[in-house]
């Protein structure tokens, strides 16, 4: 593949493209993306990243090619990048401050990164960060938004402190309903709603929710929300606020565009264990998206790939859910007529990707449709037919990959 190096100008958001491919390789084309998405997407290299699939230059929206998911941990330089707003300031660790307060906090205070690390016990956790709209581009019919394929997700080892420990120091009043989060990112024009999110108080106090400052053993990268971001294992990434600079305890539900109407699913369409009821209203037909649905991804074979009759075919992939735990991945090589259990890889924690693999020797020539389906300990599994919703969320349709055996 030929590529052209181009010299780059720096930008308002401190980003630059370090090189751009002229020819789009086939793996940009998740089957099912719109022709406009395919034509406009390209492999591009952001600072500190390997080439990722560019969906938008600005805001910066780049996804991870499926081929990069060959390990349970997604390396930082392969991790997807997603911002809602165009201004993404680079903040040095020395300059970063986190303000904790709000009307329902007894003792508002401010923390430097050094204090955050020193004053609170460190916790490490492996967890999947998945954009709510991952696979939106595969929706049929297509829906408006960032047209993601399979790669708006990643799995990292996060290190940080428990949010509940930091909130305890602020003293949360009994009237607190939600905890709100604001990052340092900002819009291009003043009238655009700032990106702010909230969690129900009970979720903010969950011991797994972190303020993270390390990712896979390195300081949290700028493009992934450094110096510090919120980690909400099991919930979609809309709550994982990047470049966190303000956390407030509030007595009333947060009312922003980003809480309502954005990031919502029709009530009852995706029954989940954890609901965000302070953001629900009787006369509003939607509820905030919360938990990640059980899902899997085949990572090493592609549509149309050729194999030899009688030679082993190894199918590899990943499976994940909201933290109930993957306990079964089944693979079908006959378009779903029969299913066999795949071998699960080591358990890296209930919020992590789980690797799996399955080998078979095709005895007949021709087309074989390979499918994989994960289930969790609750008995939840993937769907065969898209559960259509206007924002294209929660797409966990079982993949169908046709291979050729000769």
């Amino acid at each position, binding site marked *: 593949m030929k590529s052209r190096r181009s010299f780059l100008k720096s*930008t308002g958001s401190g980003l630059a493209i370090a090189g751009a491919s002229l020819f789009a390789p086939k793996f940009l084309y998740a089957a099912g993306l*719109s022709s406009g*998405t395919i034509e406009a997407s390209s492999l591009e290299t952001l600072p500190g990243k390997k080439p990722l699939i560019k969906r938008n*230059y*600005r805001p910066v929206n780049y996804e991870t090619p499926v081929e990069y998911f060959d390990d349970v941990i997604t390396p930082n330089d392969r991790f997807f990048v997603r911002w809602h707003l*165009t201004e993404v300031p680079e903040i040095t660790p020395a300059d970063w401050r986190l303000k904790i307060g709000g009307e329902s906090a007894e003792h508002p205070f401010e923390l430097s990164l050094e204090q955050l690390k020193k004053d609170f016990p460190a916790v490490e956790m492996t967890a999947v960060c998945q954009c709510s709209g991952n696979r939106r*581009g595969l929706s049929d019919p297509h829906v408006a938004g960032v047209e993601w394929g399979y790669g708006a997700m990643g799995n990292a080892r996060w290190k940080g402190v428990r949010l509940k420990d930091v909130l305890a120091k602020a003293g949360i009043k009994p009237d607190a309903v939600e905890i709100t989060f604001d990052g340092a990112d900002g819009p291009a024009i003043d009238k655009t709603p700032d990106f702010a999110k909230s969690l129900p108080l009970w979720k903010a106090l969950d011991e797994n929710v972190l303020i993270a400052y390390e990712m896979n053993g390195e300081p949290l990268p700028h493009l992934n929300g450094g110096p510090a971001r919120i980690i909400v294992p099991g919930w979609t990434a809309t709550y994982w606020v990047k470049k966190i600079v303000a956390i407030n305890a509030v007595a009333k539900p947060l009312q922003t565009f980003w809480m309502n109407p954005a990031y919502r699913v029709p009530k009852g369409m995706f029954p989940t264990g954890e609901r965000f009821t302070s953001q629900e209203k009787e006369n509003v037909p939607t509820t905030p998206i919360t938990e990640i649905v059980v899902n899997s991804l085949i990572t090493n074979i592609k549509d149309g790939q050729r194999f030899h009759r009688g030679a082993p075919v190894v199918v590899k992939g990943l499976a994940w859910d909201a933290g109930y735990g993957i306990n079964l991945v089944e693979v079908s090589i006959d378009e779903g007529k029969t299913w066999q259990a795949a071998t699960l890889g080591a358990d890296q924690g209930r919020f992590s990707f789980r690797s799996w693999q399955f080998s078979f020797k095709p005895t007949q020539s021709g087309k074989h449709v390979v499918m994989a389906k994960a289930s969790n300990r609750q008995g939840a599994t993937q769907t065969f037919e898209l559960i259509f919703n206007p924002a294209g969320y929660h797409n966990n349709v079982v993949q169908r990959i046709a291979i050729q055996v000769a």
Partner: protein
Amino acid sequence: MKSLTIFSILGLAALSASAVAGEDKIQLKHGPGSELVAAHCVMCHSLDMIQINSPFLKRGQWEATVTKMKKVMGAPINDEDTAKIVDYLTKYYGAETPPAPPAAAKN
């Protein structure tokens, strides 16, 4: 956090300063309204946002999208320009319509 940068409609020429390297090679399809679309939409996002959202939105959906950009995101677009922008997006980036039947041969 609020942005430090405020663009006014009069300052459109200055907007290229905010463009990210790479996005200046994006070319919208040429047609009536294309310059208007480029000038307004590029204030907040690169024009690939239009390209990737094609060709599947119908007129009503493009209209809803432009309305959202005005009413929710605060894009300063007047009604006259709104109509031209919706026309352009529908014609050049809208849902594909079935090809017209071939014209009857005239002898």
